[in-house]
């Protein structure tokens, strides 16, 4: 990280702080406190903290990691926020992270990974995991338009983005479960959706945290080339889980990626 990228002056944030919004935070804590770093899961657009409460929170806790998930404003059980910006989402993540008892590892999924990337510039996380990261750009829009034109096109004009079963899950997941998850999806604000097309790149992370990127080569939202590009930005290669859909935390083989994340945290010296 070069000093020219390190921003000290933040006049806009000082003079126009983000307006607070009530946030939903779900958690699962290990029965025995073992001094492991807390994990904060950040769901992507349309998802709420529930997406992690389904399997991953409990699994992380059972392996000794205190696990929390936040719903970004306007999602899940958090306060409605139709005009929220990407900056407000990042604010929500930093607020929850700084409120945890110890320095946290941020885990972002989908566009939540982009929110985490922005939050990393404002909070020295112990580590970060970007799961199937949606960093925006015209490529992602093109892929989504090809796979699901009816669900994607309205979002371009400020309407809701509607992801379908085929984009999110593999065929292994029982139909009934998949329908239930898709039914729970909400929407991000239109300004945040547009930010995926025109927002400047996230500033470099403070405190040089180790970053792990993982996803599925069969993800129908994030092309494998994007995974490689994002991982290269953080100086590594992506960890791949073939045969899974975009929502790896809900798909049939949800245990594999979370186990890989926890193994990485146990091995990564800087993340202790």
């Amino acid at each position, binding site marked *: 990280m*070069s*000093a*020219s990228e*390190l*921003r*000290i*002056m*933040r*006049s*806009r*944030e*000082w*003079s*126009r*702080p983000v307006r*607070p*919004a009530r946030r939903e935070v779900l958690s699962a804590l290990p029965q025995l406190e073992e001094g492991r770093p807390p994990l904060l899961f950040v769901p992507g657009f349309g998802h709420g903290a529930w997406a992690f409460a389904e399997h991953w929170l409990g699994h992380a806790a059972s392996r000794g990691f205190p696990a929390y998930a936040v719903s970004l404003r306007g999602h899940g059980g958090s306060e409605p926020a139709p005009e929220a910006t990407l900056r407000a989402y990042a*604010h929500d993540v*930093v*607020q929850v992270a*700084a*409120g*945890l*008892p*110890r*320095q946290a590892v941020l885990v972002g999924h989908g566009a939540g990974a982009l929110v985490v990337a922005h939050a990393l510039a*404002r*909070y*020295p996380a112990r580590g970060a995991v970007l799961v199937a990261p949606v960093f925006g750009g015209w490529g992602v829009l093109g892929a989504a338009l090809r796979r699901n034109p009816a669900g994607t096109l309205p979002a371009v004009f400020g309407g809701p983005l509607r992801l379908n079963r085929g984009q999110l899950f593999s065929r292994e997941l029982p139909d009934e479960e998949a329908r239930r998850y898709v039914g729970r999806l909400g929407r991000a604000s239109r300004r945040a959706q547009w930010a995926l097309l025109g927002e400047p790149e996230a500033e470099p992370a*403070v*405190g*040089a945290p180790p970053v792990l990127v993982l996803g599925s080569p069969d993800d129908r939202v994030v092309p494998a080339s994007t995974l490689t590009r994002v991982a290269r930005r953080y100086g590594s290669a992506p960890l791949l889980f073939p045969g899974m859909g975009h929502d790896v935390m809900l798909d049939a083989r949800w245990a594999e990626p979370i186990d890989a994340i926890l193994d990485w945290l146990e091995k990564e010296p800087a993340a202790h």
Partner: protein
Amino acid sequence: MSTSTDHGRPDPEATSSGLGSDGRTVSDRGDTVCVIGAGASGLTAIKNLREHGFGVDCYERETGVGGGWNWRHDRSPVYASTHLISSKPFTQFPDFPMPDSWPDYPHHSQVLSYFERYADHFDLRSHIWFGTEVVRVEPAEGERWDVTTRSTGGYGPERTSRYAAVVIANGHNWSPKLPRYEGLEQFRGEIMHASSYKDPAQLRGKRVLVVGAGNTGCDIAVEAAQQASRCWHSTRRGYWYAPKYVLGRPADQVNDSLLALRVPLRLRQWLYHWTLRLTVGDLTRFGLPKPDHRVYETHPIANSQLVYYVGHGAIGPVPDIARFHPYAVELADGREIDPEVVIFATGYLPRFEFLDASVFGDSAGAGRPTLWLNAFTPGHPTLAVAGLVQPDSGLFTLSHWQTVLFARLLQARRDRPERAVAFASRVRERAGERYSGQVKESSRHWFEVGHADYLRAVQRALVELEGK
């Protein structure tokens, strides 16, 4: 969460012993950096040095973190009602925000809990030796430092350790500055410095004279207006009393909107005077002296209530004190008043009693070192002062970036020595630089800085240190 009275016991590993200049045993702490004080600036120094890969030993004379913000500490200047003068975005550390649920201007007890959370969150307590005061800091060979410590209060043996670098973060609001007056010894009423003022109950039903129009003086005058039977407020000159809210937002946030647009000082002053005219109007109408300077030329006073109580007759503005009589105080305009309690809110002076004043280029010993960025000493590249600034906003952000810059300087000394040498020559050239517009001279205002000017200077220093 652990309490603030935890005793840290850093592990004294990697210690080898040698002999100091006068034959004392010196334990060599290798590349470890010593931080003096675990208040706001000391804590952020520990965190940022650790984050940049340095080992840290911090010495704290009290038994908890928070320095002056910890009301349990005997040197703490806070009183029961102390609130922040700057709003949250200007007060918090840039990478550890205060909770959304807190008010715009948090109470001092919230500020203390903020530091305790900061210390726990980043696991800083294990690097702090509590109840240990620093007696001497002396330069040693190889641009290193011998730091001598002992238990607070002077018990137990002294212990000297050698460090690669030292960050002085001992605060500047604990050594009271008391003015001299003719006849003060004969005065039969009660006299105290604002540092011993803790609770409005001390004023209840009494006739009170408050001296000084800093933020503390104004706060105490307002409390006297609410509690005392009579309150006079003596000021040397007229001041601008800024409300804490203007145009529906915290005043400092409005000011920074203008700073962000780089609105010139003159225009900001004009806008400010115009806003005040719309609200409180001409202060001389209340008997307050006319300010002899333009706004932004002295440390800003943020107090919405002072003018309100003056307007209700609960505070009587009076000029400077001429002399004290046994049962009366004579004012500069010849009037005599008869207070029972006189409170001097006349400020504090920085003190570095553990350091030979010549190290700082302060041969007069006036507690007024010659530094660059108020932090770096010519000729001593491994010494930094954190928090010796009096900004027109919160201090903690400034301390954070000072210590980040110092940590990166120490990294450069190891990895790119030529850049550290260039930095040292800039320190020599630019020592004594000021970072504010013209300010009225006083023993405090030499380290007054404008936060925008100052932080831009730190940003430039970082770019010069690391840029291409």
